[in-house]
Structures are given as C-alpha cells and as structure tokens.
C-alpha cells in the first residue's frame, strides 16, 4: 500500500525532472538530427537532394543558382545528406526554432 512513499519523499527533495522551457533549453545531443544546414559555397546545384527528398522540402534552381529549404516541410531524415555528392549538406544537432 505504501510502495511509492520512498519515491514521493525523494521527489520532495530533488530538483524537477522537467525543464522550464523555453527559459531552460535542453542541450543539443551530439549526433542528433536537429536541422539541415548547407555550405552553399561548396554546392554544385546538381539537384540530387531535391530529387531524393521524401517531403519535397528542398528546391534547387539552376538559373539563377539557388538552394531553398522549407523548414516546415523538412522531416530531418538526413537522406539528402547521404546522397549529396559534394558533402556540403550537414545535419546540425540544434533543433529548428519556430
């Protein structure tokens, strides 16, 4: 009947498990797929990322050269990072801020 009493007493004296978001933000975890970033100076605008993107979030223009990401469509799967021939796409661990 009193199996949770020890737990309750400990909870009284320790800090909360939850965070006061957005005042306190969880630190980014290394290796986490947070948001997509491009080093645009290395991009050759081949369009491989646009063709492979499962969510149609990337638009690549040849003339004039442009690379656009719709962050609200992106599902941060990282497929584009894998197929990029110049490896100029990187996945950063920090999450996209609305």
């Amino acid at each position, binding site marked *: 009947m009193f199996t949770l009493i020890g737990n309750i007493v400990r909870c009284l004296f320790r800090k909360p498990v939850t965070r006061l978001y957005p005042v306190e933000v969880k630190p980014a975890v290394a290796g986490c797929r947070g948001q997509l970033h491009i080093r645009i100076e290395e991009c050759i605008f081949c369009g491989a990322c646009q063709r492979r993107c499962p969510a149609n979030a990337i638009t690549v223009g040849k003339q004039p050269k442009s690379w656009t990401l719709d962050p609200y469509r992106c599902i*941060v799967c990282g497929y584009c990072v894998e197929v990029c021939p110049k490896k100029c796409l990187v996945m950063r661990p920090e999450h996209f801020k609305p």
Partner: protein
Amino acid sequence: MQTTATSAFPTRNTVIPFGPQHPVLPEPLQLRLVLEDERVVEALPAIGYCHRGLEKIAEKKDFIQNVYLVERICGICSFMHSLTYCQGIEELMKVDVPSRAKHLRVVWAELHRMHSHLLFLGLVSDAFGFENLFMQLWRVREHILEIMEKTAGARIMLSVCSIGGVRRDLDDGQMAEVLRVLDRVEHELEEILPTLMNDYSVRQRLCGVGLLSPDKAHDLGAVGPTARASGIPMDHRQTGYAAYGDLGGVTPVTETAGDCYARIMIRVRELHQSAEFVRKAIQKIPAGPIAVPVKGNPDGEVLVRMEQPRGELIFYIKGNGTRNLERFRARTPTFANLPALLHMLPGCQLADVPVIILSIDPCISCTER
C-alpha cells in the same frame, strides 16, 4: 446524448458518443455507446477521423523514400513500420542483410517496444485515475527516448532503418550506455511496477473488467498482447526475423485471465523481456558492415509480417520493376483488435469503458493510415 426507442433497442436506451475528442483518447476514435442505465448494451465504432491516404502516397514516392513515409504511419512504434517495410523490400529484391545490421535492428526495435509499453502503462494509469503513476512511468520512459536520441539521432522517428541494413552503427561506448540505461530503467521500474501490479484500487478497477475468452480472441482475430492476455501464445518474433532467431528464440508472454489486468500484466512482463533482448543483441552483436548496397528496383509481390508492440503488423508490397510501387497495403494491429474491443464492451459499466478501450492500446493513426 440522445435517447432512442428503435426496433433494435425496444427499451428506451441512451446513446452516448464516446469520442472522437475524449480525455482518455490520445487519438480520435468514436464509439457510439448504447446504454441501459449505466450499462453498455452495444458499442458502434466510427473511424476515419485521421485518414491521411498514406497508402496512396506510397505509390507516388519511390521505394526508398517510402522508408521515411511508412515510418510516419505511427508516431509511437515508427521504427517497427520502417523495419517491416525494409524487410519486405529486401525479400523482394533478395538482399542479404549483414548480421550486425540485424542485431542493431533488434536493439532499436526492442527499445521502441519498451517506450511504447511504458507510454501505454502511463496512459492507462491516467485513465483509471492514478495520475502519480502516470508521471512516474513517463519519467522512466524519458530515459529510453534519450538513449534513442543519442544512438539514432531522434527520439521517435529514428529513420535509421534502410533497405539493405541500417544507417547508423553503435560503438562500444554507446552500447555500454544503452546497457547502463536499461539497468537504470529496470531499477526504477522495480519501485513503480509493484504499485501497478498489487495496489488494491488498481486491481479493483482492472480485474474481471473487459473479459475476452481465448475462443473469442481467436475467432475475432485478436493479435498481440490482447490475444496473449487471453492465453493465445502468438508472437511473430517466434518466426526469427531480424536477429531474433540468433538470440535464442522467443517465448511468448501469456496470461490466462483475459481481462484488463491481464492485458496490462502482459506489457509489464514484456518490458523485462524486451530489456533482455537488447542485452542479448548487444552481447552477441558481430563485427562487420551495417548495410549492403542495393541495386535495381523491386519486382513482384510480398506479404511481410512482424510483431509490433500492439500485435501483428502486415504489409503487402507489390512492385512492378520501376522505382514506384504498384500497391502498398498495411494491416495494423489495432484494426485487428477492434472487433475484440467491440466484444468486450457490451455488459460493462460506463465508467469502465475508458479503461477497456485503452487496454487494447489503440493506435488510431496506424489503423486509418
């Protein structure tokens, strides 16, 4: 609420629309409950509130993009969907997946099962009014989500399963951390679970409620924990897919009572079983590549089955030699468990309806795709 006196219900019955928006339902499902006083006479389901047409979209995307699409069929057991799909395509294309990848798939699949069961146990605790237990269980679940984020790069939508293997490897440090987290989770559960299993008020709410006999479970096609709680030893991991065959086989966890308490106990016992599978997979993981390159396009049809946290998941995949599939069809476990649910409800009290519905762990977004 409306009062009816139809030919089907000759006495004056009350019809209560339970859902689609209801505090205990995480997802939209409507059950029209025909009541005689407080007793349920009949339950009529109405589904279709979150149909997204994913099967049709799967015919428009190419078969590799579909890995990320099918993962989004469910927001809880997403890895299981991508694993089932990848296994189906690999069978079609006769791809031999490296053993290390199979072991890694078991690690993530069982971590997913653990977080899904903890989510369920928390929700059902909340449904019978034990909010403290709900918060305790979800706090423990957070450890599993964090280790998935560290190993796979995301908390739920892991996106690590790919056709031909997996996309990420685990180094020794990460494996040691997974084992540490499992020990911590089991240690914390040792304190919490006895309350769920033995508390007087919990047993009063769950024992003998929502009975499903073994014969009925079989006849109505119940799957997963719902069937196993009625004594049917049915678990598709027994077929030895992924690396389950190399890990000493699977003995299904069964109960015999067939009530809500038995269905919850199945999940409690499967938590420990899953932790054991993760440990075994990490112990026996061989060195080697984590994926093989896949060339060509799928041609032919395949029916692939797998054990999800909620039961048996079936994918039908038909390829025609192009990058797009000709047909993709998913039969999810909640769909199979709905007839059993409709059988459990008549005769119960209105106050027990939320607990009975949650006891099958319904996933409506899976069901409606």
